[in-house]
């Protein structure tokens, strides 16, 4: 192993030179952008909730996983072998609306019923509560999935099979070729970021959310019911987690499974911390940085230098550690955010 590693490192300069070929660069670029889109979608809801309410929602990954299963359920019910690829795509967007609606309703219920009574307690209460919600959701999903004869720890293949064939292919766009699913993730990610950005900057409610994220007390003193805004934003954040889950349900690298909860929570937290807790702009920038670091590390450590899949993940966490040392508040973070 060490000899293999030494040989690989010795060949590093040559392999790095390979990166600067058109094919390698375009491959890394598209991989990076699709990863960035996924990371942004995973982290958006988390950062909105923390930014306004100061609540670290440890159940975010489980809600993403729930969205993946609910989305998969919608697709499995609607799609048959005879369903055409474009109809499947249309059904996906129907499912997206359904999942967003259901998860938002769940989010509103959780905020009003469980989280609101704890606002005046120390943050550890909210952390423990959301961690408890994670355990409950994970176990409930595991029981339901097992009841229907599915394996909870492996991807739901039937749901993956509802994907239109062209999303599983390499698409040739002029001189470059890009994976269909990668392109879909980029487009959906960009559309979601644009929609949330427009909501935050072009609507009065978005203005209230941004003001409340900075100073909830002052916002309240302007006659705005910040508690109601909390409920709306928690619902929106959970709905976005569901949307991300539905997207990942179609991705071969993720898929609907119970472990998806943990697999998505960690990168979501990494992105939110690097961007600066609670800042939407920081989250989007951090998602791009982490996406590029991940894609580059993947190219180096899986495709080129040495085949050791855990190393790309290590790179992402290394960025997190460096950020925490040199700029603990993150790229765009403030000393304090949120509050009630």
């Amino acid at each position, binding site marked *: 192993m060490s000899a293999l590693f030494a040989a690989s490192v010795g060949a590093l300069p040559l392999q790095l030179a390979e990166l600067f070929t058109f094919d390698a660069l375009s491959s890394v670029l598209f991989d990076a952008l699709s990863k960035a889109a996924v990371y942004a979608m995973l982290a958006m809801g988390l950062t909105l909730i923390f930014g306004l309410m100061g609540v670290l929602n440890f159940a975010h990954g489980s809600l993403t996983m729930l969205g993946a299963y609910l989305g998969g359920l919608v697709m499995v019910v609607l799609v048959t072998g005879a369903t055409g690829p474009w109809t499947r795509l249309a059904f996906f967007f129907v499912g997206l609306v359904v999942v967003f609606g259901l998860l938002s309703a769940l989010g509103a219920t959780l905020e009003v019923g469980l989280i609101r009574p704890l606002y005046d307690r120390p943050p550890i209460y909210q952390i423990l509560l959301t961690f408890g919600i994670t355990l409950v959701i994970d176990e409930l999903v595991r029981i339901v999935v097992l009841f229907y004869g599915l394996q909870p720890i492996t991807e739901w293949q039937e749901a993956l099979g509802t994907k239109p064939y062209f999303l599983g292919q390499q698409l040739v766009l002029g001189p470059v070729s890009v994976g269909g699913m990668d392109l879909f993730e980029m487009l959906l990610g960009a559309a979601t970021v644009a929609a949330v950005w427009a909501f935050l900057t072009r609507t009065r409610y978005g*203005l209230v959310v*941004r*003001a409340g994220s*900075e100073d909830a007390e*002052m916002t*309240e*003193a302007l*006659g705005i*019911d910040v508690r109601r805004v909390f409920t709306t934003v928690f619902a929106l954040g959970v709905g976005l987690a569901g949307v991300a889950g539905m997207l990942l349900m179609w991705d071969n690298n993720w898929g609907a499974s119970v472990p998806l909860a943990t697999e998505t929570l960690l990168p979501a937290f990494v992105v939110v911390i690097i961007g600066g807790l609670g800042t939407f702009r920081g989250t989007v920038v951090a998602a791009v940085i982490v996406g590029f670091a991940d894609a580059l590390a993947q190219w180096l450590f899986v495709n080129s230098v040495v085949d050791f899949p855990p190393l790309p993940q290590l790179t992402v966490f290394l960025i997190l550690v460096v950020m925490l040392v040199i700029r603990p508040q993150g790229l765009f973070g403030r000393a304090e955010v949120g509050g009630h």
Partner: protein
Amino acid sequence: MSSSDAPADDTSGVDTTTETDGETDSGAGTPADPLLAVEGVHSYYGESHILEGVSLDVNEGEVVALIGRNGVGKTTTLRSILQLTPPREGHVHYRGEDLVGLGTNEVAQRGVGWIPEDRRVFSALTVEENVRISVPKGGDVDAAVARVYETFPALEERRNAEAGALSGGQQQMLAIARGLVGENDLLLIDEPSEGLAPQIVADVADAIADASREATVLLVEQNLPLALDLADRFYVLDNGQVVATGDTDDVSADDDDLRGYLTA
């Protein structure tokens, strides 16, 4: 300046008082139904007893100053009126309605505006966004913004700048503008001159004087000449209690007794 054991023939123009719960001596010319009546309010931070039975009245159209040294409970009085620090005892009547038990947003919706001590403009929002968010739901936002720029031309020049990038004086102007567009009948203004250069203080004073033509004002201010210049009446707060009150026409800023309440 007299203290609570002042002689009966004191002619300083200051009525000394140790007001207790529900007993208010609001000075000369008080109509029967004040716009705001704070009655025997006791407020706490945790277990610290900050206000010990504060009572005061503010009549419609008046500017009333609340003065006293640091830490005597002036800001807490404003926070208690707004229900940001809800009183544990006592009442806050506004237009005859008791505000105790309402949410802060509900108090604000009734027309009580707050211009806080440290401005508290939304630093990540632009100047214009700060104004827009302060217009009540259903209000004419564009007209309100135009009015603010007419009153404070300096803000129009920085309309797209983040409020956090403004100077202290400009932030204070923005905070006052925010209170004005809120269509408030009562403005609670906390230490508006704090940390500002003398020339800027003069501008702020003009802005408050303009604001007082549209709304009743309860002004917390340690700058005694400014407070007396702007206000019709004053209350002196000490150790969480109203200890003196009077008409500003009857006192001067170099009144030793009055100044005594402002120095440690």
